[in-house]
């Protein structure tokens, strides 16, 4: 074998050579002092480069538990063929496409948060995330992101029954696939159960601790990980499918959510979010509100349009927004993670403008 070239030396040091090639290199090195010298030089270079890159590394923070990023409930998959997409929101109201009741239900049942000790879970309002039914994909029921039934409720029965009644009539009027209807029925049952003052966990969350191991000997971890992965995996291209266009249409067809949510102080908001709120830096904040499971920051854009930023700690989220994605270059959604919060933007502007505004969202001290 002729002398070992640089690439082979580095590959040898990195463990990137096949066993056979590695043996060949070693045999050559055994007989060739100059190459051994070059190997040592290469070793120093590898080490120096690695050290430089260490200086340009982020601090090792523990990763948030995956449970915080994943949907709050097991996904329900059933193949369904639909002619159109339907979005159904239960509890807060029923709104969506032409097939459903258009009248939004006002969340009058929300308690007022006038102290800083109240927590959203104390509300007697049951928030159920939308069920996204997509003609191209499987049906997924996004389970409730928050279910506030545990705390004692001053006025539970009347309001929730009211909601439930409207829900039933909406269901009756809706043309639904039987499967989806069964699913909605079961969620409605849970809604009814919640109003009966029972703590219902409609959204079982698998609280496995899947946070990765603490960053001890990170470099060794990387080497180990490498050794485990021999095969060359196929890369899957990221394709934006026709489903995205449907989602875009759906997003713009939705009526805005009611504004009856109570106004809270920024401190309360920061407490709820376990961190500072984020907002658009160039616009004044006209209100900070608390919905059942999120903080909503409102900006008024002259001449009077309201832009809403719905903010949750990364994790309390939800596939509630799975239905509200809008394709724009490779930014696939009107939501973003900023400052550890999952932020959705909504307002009477075209998706492009909303997307641009979303980019400007910042942590507000």
């Amino acid at each position, binding site marked *: 074998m002729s002398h070992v070239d*640089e*690439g*082979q*030396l*580095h*590959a*040898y040091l*990195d463990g*990137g*050579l096949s066993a056979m090639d590695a043996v060949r290199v070693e045999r050559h090195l055994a007989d060739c002092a100059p190459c051994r010298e070059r190997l040592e030089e*290469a070793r120093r*270079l*590898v080490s*120096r*480069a690695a050290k*430089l*890159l260490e*200086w*340009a*590394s*982020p*601090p*090792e*923070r523990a*990763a*948030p538990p*995956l449970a915080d*990023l*994943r949907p709050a409930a097991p*996904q329900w998959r059933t193949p369904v063929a639909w002619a159109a997409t339907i979005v159904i929101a239960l509890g807060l109201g029923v709104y969506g496409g032409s097939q459903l009741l258009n009248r939004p239900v006002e969340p009058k049942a929300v308690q007022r948060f006038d102290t800083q000790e109240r927590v959203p879970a104390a509300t007697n309002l049951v928030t159920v995330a939308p069920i996204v039914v997509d003609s191209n994909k499987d049906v997924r029921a996004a389970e409730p992101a928050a279910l506030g039934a545990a705390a004692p409720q001053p006025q539970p029965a009347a309001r929730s029954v009211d909601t439930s009644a409207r829900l039933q009539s909406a269901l009756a009027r809706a043309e639904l696939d039987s499967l989806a209807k069964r699913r909605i029925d079961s969620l409605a049952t849970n809604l009814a159960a919640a109003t009966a003052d029972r703590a219902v966990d409609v959204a079982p969350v698998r609280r*496995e601790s*899947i946070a*990765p*191991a603490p*960053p001890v000997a*990170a470099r060794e971890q*990387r080497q180990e*990980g*490498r050794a485990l*992965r*021999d*095969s*060359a*995996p*196929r*890369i*899957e291209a*990221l394709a934006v499918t026709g489903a995205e266009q449907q989602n875009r249409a759906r997003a713009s067809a939705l009526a805005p959510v009611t504004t009856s949510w109570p106004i809270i102080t920024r401190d309360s908001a920061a407490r709820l979010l376990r961190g500072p709120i984020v907002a658009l830096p160039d616009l004044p904040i006209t209100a900070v509100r608390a919905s059942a499971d999120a903080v909503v920051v409102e900006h008024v854009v002259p001449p009077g349009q309201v832009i809403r930023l719905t903010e949750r700690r*990364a994790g309390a989220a939800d*596939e509630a927004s799975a239905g509200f994605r809008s394709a724009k270059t*490779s*930014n696939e959604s009107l939501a*973003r*993670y*900023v*400052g*550890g919060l*999952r932020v959705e933007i909504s307002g009477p502007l075209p998706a492009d403008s909303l997307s*641009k505004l979303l*980019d400007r969202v910042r942590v507000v001290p």
Partner: protein
Amino acid sequence: MPEDIAEVYKTTYRALVRFLYRKVWDADRAEDLAQEAFARALVHKPENARGWLFVVAANMARDEARRAVRDKRHLTLLTNEEADPAPAPDAALVAELERERVRAALERLTPRDRDVLLLWDSGLSYGEIAAQTGLAAGAIGTTLARARKRLVEAYETGSEDEHVARG
């Protein structure tokens, strides 16, 4: 399947943050983008999650850089991004200067060489890097050799007042 993503998450989250950090140079942004990439993976459920994640991450970082340029925003490095217990002020300053020099040195590499180097430093294997970049596995060693050499040279000859366009 969600369980697979959980496994991938354990082994890949920090690698993704590390990779993204060398693109956006902001630890908080890197974590945010990594979380977003995983959130998307939970929805898309790609076949090969690890490779997919790095592709998505690279795209997100690139788009963010493009938008910044287009919106004429000035990217400034946050000096208070390190959440670690604060070292003595001069040590922090030295660390930041070193990071700046490494960043500038990285800019001197070709995009291909830089990506291969960063993917390697994030923990991907030769095989994975080959699949991700389209290079032959046999070419990875050569690319890394060249990238490392250029990085060290650029660092040692670099000066702080050198302005290079972000790639």
